[in-house]
């Protein structure tokens, strides 16, 4: 494979940019769905009533992560066909585990005596969860979401294989046509997206975090 600067610049500034928004969608939508599923499930699994389901539910999430995204797409192919939707589903399944696991770990890390004292002061279960447990476990929960975001940003490139578009389209075009410039440009943009997402989530966390952690 050869490398020409002119073609690289063209790939960077003309061929790739139209795919940025598509790629962002492929990251943010599965990530949003994954948070909406894994976070509440993680919280529920730490409640006394549901605690004994933890092992079973977590093994489902674990399994979700061990299946290669391509295989997930293959499984859903008969129902959903090719394209955008199966890609989103595969990426969602992929993003679940780190969020669920960190939610569990974060809530488990809240010191027992703090919960005990809060209960002893007369806080209701809901007040303890919303005013004590969640604020204290926030950094751990957020780091799970960040892990998922970065993971999804990279994996989303595979969506192009099933017609899900995104920055993967640029990379796979590069592979098919032996154009190093396209592969490099696509990879750089995915890297930038991953870093910016991480920064963005860190910023959001900073706004939500109690001030003693700053």
């Amino acid at each position, binding site marked *: 494979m050869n490398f020409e600067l002119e073609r690289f610049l063209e790939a960077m500034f003309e061929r790739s940019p139209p795919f940025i928004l598509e790629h962002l969608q492929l990251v943010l939508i599965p990530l949003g769905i994954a948070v909406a599923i894994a976070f509440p499930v993680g919280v529920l699994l730490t409640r006394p009533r549901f605690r004994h389901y933890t092992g079973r539910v977590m093994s489902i999430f674990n399994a979700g992560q061990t299946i290669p995204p391509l295989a997930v797409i293959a499984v859903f192919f008969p129902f959903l066909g090719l394209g955008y939707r199966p890609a989103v589903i595969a990426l969602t399944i992929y993003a679940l585990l780190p969020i669920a696991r960190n939610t569990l770990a974060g809530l488990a890390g809240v010191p027992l005596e703090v919960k*005990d004292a809060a*209960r002893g*002061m*007369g806080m209701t279960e809901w007040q303890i969860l919303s005013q004590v447990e969640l604020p204290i476990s926030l950094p751990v929960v957020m780091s799970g979401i960040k892990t998922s975001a970065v993971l999804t940003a990279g994996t989303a490139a595979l969506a192009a294989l099933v017609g899900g578009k995104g920055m993967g389209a640029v990379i796979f075009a590069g592979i098919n046509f032996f154009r190093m410039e396209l592969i490099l440009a696509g990879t750089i943009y995915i890297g930038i997206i991953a870093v910016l997402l991480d920064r963005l989530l860190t910023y959001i966390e900073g706004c939500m975090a109690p001030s*003693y952690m700053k």
Partner: protein
Amino acid sequence: MLEKLIQLHQIKKVFPNTNIPAVDEITFSIEKGNICVFVGPSGCGKTTILRMINRLVEPTSGNIFIDGENVLNVDSDELRRRIGYVIQQIGLLPHRTIEQNVGLVPRLLKWPEAKITQRVVELLEIVGLDPAESAKKYPYQLSGGQMQRVGVARALAADPPIMLMDEPFGAVDPIVRGRLQDEFLRLQQEVKKTICFVTHDINEAIKMGDYIVVMNGGKLVQQGTPMEVLSNPVNHFVKDLIGDDRGVKLLDLTRAESLMTAVTESPAAANDCFCFIDAIQPVKMALEVMMKNDSDMVGIRRGKNVVGTLSWADIKKHIHKISGDQE
């Protein structure tokens, strides 16, 4: 007659998956304005009793009454807001300032903000913290002793008539512990709360308690004033718990005036005294003064008048009387 504020009636607790009850059919009551200390080894059920009073643990059978009202008929969260709760690990909310921690219960009770702010300042002063300096700090910025003070302030915040204290001074060093105990006893003179106090330290129990409940293996072994328990332990367990030095421990609880020979009985002896202590000071103090001055006798003063004398022989006779049955 003092009012019985807290009454436990045949309280029993068997934790799930265990056969032996943690607390076995215990009945007793606590008078208003008293400090009642539960003392016993780890696992004797003292903490469980405390946690049943504010329903952090539900009894298997039996009833608990506060002010005549069965606690099982009260909403547990409402109940806990009316009872101060202090634990050894303190459990301050790490993400809230000292101000917010102390104002926690008033805020749950929906007091107006201005009243909460005022109350927090008042409480921090009461427990010996500078409000201007500490109110905006976070718990991790305080020392262990300061955190315990905040824990006590938080429990006092909504002015509950009852306080439950589970080894509240257990996590600090002996010097700070002694100081916190003294301050707390002084504070109790003003606030007159009804207090359930849990400790494994018999010395702390004797110092803090108006009334002592000795427990072992979930059973109530002996109850009574510190003086009653010390001078008349019911069995070997209580004797061992108190230690072989119970005669000397009693000297700390006995006022000098109760052992003295009145000046009217032997006026001549009073003239020989060259060192004196106050009538309400403990006998231990008399010993200290005697040793310091190399004397066998101290004079006992009430105000400026010498009212009696206390000699080494008097004290020895007293110790012998209490622990005479010990080898």
